[in-house]
């Protein structure tokens, strides 16, 4: 079974803060599908560095304001 990546994020919270942006709108803005945005928000997928920067720039915040290391899920 695939393990969850040890990276948390505030994407959903930031979407809500930016005029209740939809997952589809966010996906279109950063060049991924709505399903990928859902997977990112649920912590099932860690986006590429490029997409992570695109999300941070879109919300006008730093990368670490969006993504954080979740030590509880780190079994490396």
């Amino acid at each position: 079974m695939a393990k969850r990546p040890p990276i948390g994020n505030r994407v959903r919270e930031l979407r809500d803060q930016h005029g209740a942006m939809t997952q589809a709108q966010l996906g279109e803005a950063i060049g991924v599908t709505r399903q990928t945005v859902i997977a990112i928000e649920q912590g099932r997928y860690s986006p590429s560095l490029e997409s992570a920067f695109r999300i941070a720039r879109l919300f006008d915040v730093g990368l670490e304001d969006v993504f954080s290391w979740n030590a509880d899920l780190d079994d490396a």
Partner: protein
Amino acid sequence: MSFQEKSAWIMSLALALGGAFYFVTVSAMSAEINQLAPPTIGAVVVYTLILIALAIIGHVAIAVFAPKEANASLDERERMIFARAGNFAGYVFGFGVILSLGMYLVSYSGNALFYGVFASLMIGQLSEYAARVFLYRVAV
């Protein structure tokens, strides 16, 4: 469910139905002559036509409801899912081919070798689509 996941379900169904048709046909032909029937071009052509027809009908049906998604290129997660599923399918196909070759060394049946490799191809493809569906639903 994304367009690509629906597509994987359609192809799985098409491969399963096409494969069932092919091996039921071969079984019936073999039963008639009381031995493993030699492969025929006709059965392979009909199998291919079933696969193409189901794939086209299924994809047109899902594209009608999501034309934008149907025309979109794969995103980064989908590319990763496709690569992993393809890699897995390669192992399944390779294992089937090696098993078929091993059986040939025991039976020296060219017909069985053909069916073994053909079945490996079908199962390999089916496992690729099954792996895509699985990977779409779990952490990647």
